[in-house]
Structures are given as C-alpha cells and as structure tokens.
C-alpha cells in the first residue's frame, strides 16, 4: 500500500513509473495540443499583421505573422475618416452595455422568482419560458410582428426581443437554487421586502453566475448582426460594427480580387490608399479586441456556470 502511494504521480494519469508508452503519448499529446493552439491563433495574428500593413503592399500577399510595411492608416481611415464605421462602433458598444445590463437585470429577476419554491406561478412560468428555447414562430411572422410594433429602425429592437433568454435564466436559476434557503427565511423574519432580499442578499451571493451571464449577453449583443440587417439595415445611424463588417465581406467575396482599383494609384496616393481587405482586417481586429480582454478573466466562472446549469438543465 505504502509503496503504491509513493509512486503515485497524478490521480488520473498513472500510478507507476513513466513507461515508454507514457512518454510517447505525452509527446504526441503535447504536439497535437500546441498545433491546435497554432491553428486557433494563427488566423487572428495574420489578420492583425494585415491590419497594420500598408494596404497596397498587402496586395502582394506573403504577410504571415508581422506587418511588412507598418502603418496606422487602416485604423485612421476607420476611426477618424469614416463616420459610418465610427457610428457603428458606438452603436455596437451601446448595445453591449445598455442591452447587456438590462438583460442581466431581467435574467436575475426571472431566475430568482423561478427559483423560489413557494412562488405561486413557478409551475406555470417555468415551462412557458423553457418552451421558447426549442420553438419559435419563425423568421417571417417575427419580422411582421416587429414591423407592426413599429420597431423597424428603432434602437429598442436590439434590446426588447431578446431581453429574457431562457437558457441564461435556467443557468442562473440552478445557481440560485444552490444558495441556502435559510438566508431568505431569515431576511423575511427580519421584515425585508422581496426587492430587498433580491438586491441585498441574492445579488451579492450570485456574483459568479452574474459575471458569466453578463459575459454571454454582452458578447451576444456585440456579435449580433442579423437583427441589424433585418430591422435596421436601412438606417445608417443604427448599423453595428458586425453589420458593416459583414457588408464588406459580401462585397469582397462577390469578386475574387477587388484590390486592383487601389493598385492604379501612385505616389502619395499609394501611401494613403486603403483596400477593402485592409479595412476588413482592421475592423476584424476592433471586433475581436474587447472579447480578448474579457473572457479569459471570467473563465473560472463560466466553466462552473456551464457545467452546473448545462448538465442539470
């Protein structure tokens, strides 16, 4: 017995001294995982390199990890000289912040109520909400409804339809259900109102799952483009970054090489020229950056939230 524990390495890996097989598997495993990281990261690094490279020079190709002729021109073009894109950036950020926080608030309220075992409509409202996860009236009826409600070309269309997401409610509900019920009982005996219980007891205790849901909804808002195309495509003041990026993508994929126009220019014009590709790469970088700086810090929370809520459903 004592001998066995002595040679134990790590519970799920092995119990004996490393064999040749162990080493071989290790080597293959590490190489494969590093390869996965390369495949995942390379396109982003490549895009980053293109976005900082002179647009005309980029036409020649051959840019991999670093820009060849460094320039900030592509970003300057987007952020300073192109009001359409800077407006879109502002709308995207507003969606993520306003839509995201309202959605988290709504999710918390609904999840808290559905977690309360004595809530009178719990048995009715839970299936009412879950059903929406699996079933929808369809694209065209929804579109006509939104139009009849006067939400076309209206910022509210980004916020109201998806305010309460059933999946997020279920994840948050399973978390709240895990909190000790005695806390709520004690607060009630002390005469706290329902709102007070929610915001002074449940809220602070649920911060990990609130962080997870905030990430989900804010990223969802930031990434959305289809609703923009469907409902606000004709309003230049309400288009989003993703939508503008998608428009560039469609125009670029329609004809194989669209860089030829830019190549006609010469001299100073060349130094200042941008191409659809260079603009696209710079916009991609802007679209990815906020995500890159949020999700790694919330990793611990969302893994727990997902495995807790996802398995139990």
């Amino acid at each position, binding site marked *: 017995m004592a001998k066995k524990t002595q040679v134990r390495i790590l519970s799920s890996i092995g119990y004996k001294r490393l064999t040749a*097989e162990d080493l071989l598997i290790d080597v293959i495993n590490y190489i494969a995982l590093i390869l996965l990281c390369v495949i995942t990261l390379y396109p982003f690094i490549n895009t980053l390199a293109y976005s900082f490279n002179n647009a005309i020079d980029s036409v020649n190709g051959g840019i991999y990890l670093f820009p060849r002729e460094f320039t900030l021109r592509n970003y300057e073009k987007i952020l300073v000289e192109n009001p359409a894109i800077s407006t879109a950036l502002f709308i995207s950020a507003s969606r993520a912040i306003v839509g995201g926080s309202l959605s988290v608030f709504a999710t918390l309220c609904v999840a808290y109520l559905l977690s309360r075992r004595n809530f*009178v409509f719990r048995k009715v409202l839970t299936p009412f909400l879950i059903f929406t996860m699996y079933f929808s009236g369809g694209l065209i009826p929804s579109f006509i409804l939104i139009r009849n409600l006067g939400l076309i070309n209206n910022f509210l269309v980004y916020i109201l339809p998806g305010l309460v997401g059933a999946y997020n409610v279920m994840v948050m509900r399973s978390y709240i259900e895990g909190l000790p019920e005695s806390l709520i009982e004690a607060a009630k005996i002390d005469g706290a109102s329902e709102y007070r219980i929610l915001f002074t007891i449940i809220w602070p205790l649920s911060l990990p799952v609130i962080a997870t849901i905030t990430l989900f909804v804010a990223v969802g808002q930031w*990434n959305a483009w289809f609703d923009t195309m469907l409902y606000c495509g004709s309003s230049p003041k309400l288009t989003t970054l993703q939508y503008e990026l998608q428009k560039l993508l469609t125009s*670029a994929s329609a004809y194989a090489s669209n860089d030829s126009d830019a190549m006609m220019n010469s001299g100073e014009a060349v130094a200042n020229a941008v191409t659809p590709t260079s603009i696209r790469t710079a916009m991609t970088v802007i679209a990815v950056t906020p995500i890159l700086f949020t999700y790694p810090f919330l990793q611990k929370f969302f893994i727990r939230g997902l495995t807790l809520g996802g398995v139990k459903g």
Partner: protein
Amino acid sequence: MSVYGNKADIPTTRIIPKKKKDLIKTIIDQRQLIILILPFMALVLVFNYLPIWGWIMAFQHYVPGKGISGSQFVGIANFIEAFTDDNFINSIKNTLLTSILKITTGFLSAITLAVMLNEVRSIAFKRTVQTISYLPYFVSWVVAVNIVYMALSPADGIVNILLTKSGLVKDPVPFMGEPKYFYWVVALSNVWKNVGWNAIIYLAAMTGIDPELYEAASIDGAGRLRRIFAVTLPCITATIKILLVLNIGNLMNAGFEQVYLLSNPSNISASRTIDVYIYTYALRSGRLSYGTAIGIFNSTIAITLIMISNYISKKIDGYGIF
C-alpha cells in the same frame, strides 16, 4: 405541491374551495414578486408567442398592405407549392447533410480534445490551451467567416499555400467556389470555432471519474492508452449519450448565421439550407406566405424531433429536458 404547505391536514371535502381561497391569498401575498416578473413575461409572450398568430399567413395569399384580416385564404396551396419546389427539396437535403456532418465532427472533435486535455499533467499548460481554445467561440460568425475566407482563399490563403507547397495538390483548391467542398467547410469551421467550448462538458464529466478505477486498471497491467479506452471513455458514455440525444433536436437546424455568411452564388446548391432559403427566397423577395409555410414545416419537424429526443433521454436517464 409545496405551495399550499400542509396539504394532508385539509379535509378532503373542502379541498377545492379551500385551494381557491388559498390561491387568491397567495397571489395577494406574493404581489411584489408578481409585479417584478410581469413585465418580463409580457415581453416573452409578445416576442416569442405572438408570432405564432402569424402562422395564419401560411394559409393565405398575404399582402402586407391588407394585413392578416384582409388577405385572401388559399388553403394549403403554399404547402403544395413548397413540395413541388425543387429548391425547397434541395434545402431539406442540405439542412440534413450539414447538420449531421456538423454534429458528427463536433462530437468526435470535442471528445478527442477533452481526452487529450485530461492527459495533460501540467496545469498551467492545460489552462493556457483551454483559454486559447475558447477564443473562437466568443468571436462572431461574421469575424469567423472573414477568417475562413482569408484562410481558404485560392490566391494567398494559408491553407492553399500549405497544400501546394507540400505537394498535396497541384493547383490551389477553390474551397468557397464549389458546392462539393461546402459541407466540409461548414463542418470544419464549426469545429474550429466550437471545439474548445464543447470539450468543457466532457472534461467536467472526466473530473468525476473515481481515481481508483485508474489504479485498478493500472494494477491489471493496462497501459496509458488502454486506460483511456477502458476507463476514461466508458465513464463518460452517459454524458455522450445524453448530449447526442439532445442534438437530435438540432437535425433541422444547420445554423443560419454560419451557413448564410459562408454561402455565395457559386456554392448555393449546397449552401441553400431551409433557413437560408426562407430568408433569401421568401423574406427578401416578399413571398411572405410561402416563407411562413416553409417555416411552419420546419418548426413542426423540429419540435417533433425534440419530443422524440426528450422521450429517449427520459428512458435512458430518468429525466428529460422538460
């Protein structure tokens, strides 16, 4: 059940009136809670349930100016038209092929990655790989498709550069330009985007495996590879089964955003899934009644598949999804 507290104490003959009275009293007691949830449930009702009213359009020749009440009824003509429409039949085929390929490759890749991560000894290395593998999951499909177009470009895409330099192919492959590659482009870009995320659930299942099982296998002389196949995989089969069953409900859903963004005129015979068809050939060209009819067909099949998967998961597992 527990709403009424000590139910057993109530005499049987008075249950109904007493219950009703209790219900009203509970509602008054819980008015704060009800006021809190009411606006949100109203939104769900409006945006998720009200569109079902629009299904009437499928049985009409809907004209936007006249509305549902003023449009002419045509019976099931729109449904008959759908089933004689070759493009619609093609879209069903594309939807099923795409979703089956996506589900299969998605499962295999996620399980493989989870097993590989489970074999990593260095916690720091494991964390780093995981963090990197989540990145594509969080970026939008617009960004992901941008990346796919760049990587697969016949002119200077990295995939074609690698393929031609290594001598595997002579000329660059037009991945986005030919229908025959399309299903694989969808399936593999889906793997690229979601594999890290999808592995989470399997990894969680693996951390629950009793270490003594590995110990016993080890004593019986099982090598590391053998332990993966004899202990790790059998221990997560319950999770695999449940997730597979849950995915039955996704068979009619090839993922609109991804497929629509990857589609272009030259691959349309493979990229025309039901969702894409409804959007491009019905909504955008104003054939609203026809599109609604196809939508109803799709929703009905989808909900049937979900009922089936729910039934099966109840059989396997004891509890279903609802």
